[in-house]
């Protein structure tokens, strides 16, 4: 029997495969599972593991936000650990003009917000916050090497705050819904010894 979950984080689906249950809903092995444990105990253990994982995931947006603030502070100080823009430009060639970077930043912000809202609407579990920090760092670096970071620091910072705030809210609300479902399932399991029927 194996516990599976659809991507929207709805009620888990249990399938019989003839093997002991050794995976969580994200197909990771459950630590400390013994084959001699009874089925309700295994289910309960898996639900608890899942609750822990969701609790950790719900803070992911905040971690990404903190990392972005750290990158922004470094950008505010003109990336003191990096070589001077002229040195990098001499090696890599000239960067795109600042207005091109600004147009790309505008389209990126628009797309990222639309994508995040779409994922929120569809209830998809997607852990994309940290890659946004990477993209935003690239914008800071491009402006830095184009010697236009002074004029364009705040647009990148504003874009980052907006995208990461929407993403953090999406991940947090997804985890909160999934957690409340897991707690209900756990409570049902403890009361009846079986999993609740699957919801539509």
């Amino acid at each position, binding site marked *: 029997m194996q516990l599976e979950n659809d991507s929207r984080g709805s009620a888990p689906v249990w399938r019989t495969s003839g093997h002991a249950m050794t995976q969580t809903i994200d197909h990771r092995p459950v630590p400390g599972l013994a084959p001699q444990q009874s089925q309700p105990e295994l289910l309960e253990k898996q639900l608890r593991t899942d609750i822990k994982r969701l609790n950790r995931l719900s803070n992911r947006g905040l971690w990404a936000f903190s990392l972005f603030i750290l990158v922004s502070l470094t950008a505010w100080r003109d990336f003191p650990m990096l070589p001077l823009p002229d040195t990098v430009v001499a090696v890599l060639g000239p960067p795109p003009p600042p207005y091109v970077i600004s147009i790309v930043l505008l389209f990126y912000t*628009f797309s990222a917000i639309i994508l995040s809202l779409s994922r929120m609407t569809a209830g998809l579990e997607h852990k994309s916050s940290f890659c946004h920090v990477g993209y935003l760092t690239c914008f800071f670096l491009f402006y830095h090497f184009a010697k236009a970071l002074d*004029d364009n620091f*705040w*647009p990148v910072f504003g*874009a980052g*705050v*907006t*995208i990461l705030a*929407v993403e953090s809210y999406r991940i947090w609300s997804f985890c909160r819904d999934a957690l409340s479902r897991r707690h209900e399932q756990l409570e049902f399991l403890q009361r009846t010894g079986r999993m609740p029927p699957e919801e539509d």
Partner: protein
Amino acid sequence: MFNSLAGRALVPVGIAVTGFVVVCFLLLYSVIKNVVNRDTVGHATNLADTILRSTRYAMLKSDRETLTTIIQNIGQQHGVEHIRVFNKEGIVQISTKTEELGRQVDKKAEGCIGCHAGAIPSSTLGSMERARTFTNGEGREVLAVMAPIYNGPECFNAPCHFHPPSQKVLGTLDIGLSRQMLLKSLAAIRNQMIVFTVMILVLTVGGVTALLRRSVFLPLLKLRRVAEQVEAGEHPEAHPSHFPRELDRIAQSLYNLSQKNHNAGEDPAAIEKGTVPKDL
């Protein structure tokens, strides 16, 4: 706040719309600022070229008195902070500020380093590279432009004084213009954009909030009251109306349910049989 339907619907939309509008405002302001700065540098470069052309004849004749008078007169114009003429060694030959005469400038200073960065000084620079901004001794923001005074045939062939033809640059004219007007214009543009941005935000977020409240949240509140009435065993006196189509079906079901319960309460036989009157 995040548990209510209003919070869930409005928080992400509010963050997304507010953030995107603010980013657009910041980018637009940055673009406008760059355009205005570039135009001002262009204007200052043109003015420097005009001064050089006006003084060319006096320079050829080595007429220092006329040269000084022209530069002093232009220097008195509103918005002109300083005009200096340096020779090849960086010594101030003519200036609108007499105390600067004879002083030598550091070639590594801002404004000079652009050409004097390497061992051999560059003789040509783009207009934006020739410009610099700083705060002068009186605490005023200044935009200064350097314009090189190039050697020419009429110069190195002149009988009065001689420069070798190999010397490309004879000296530099440095003109400083006040940025007060520019900063005032930028501040006016910024304030107007802030007002427009706030108005757009209020209209968008306020409009969405008002429409959602009127079309969704208030009917839901009304529906909740009906549900609570039915749950408490009370019978709604009239059929609940004025619901949007989707909610109207739920309200109808709740009303029918309460009607059945009400009739079943009046007819004990129906309760025993577990049936309800069919006319409902």
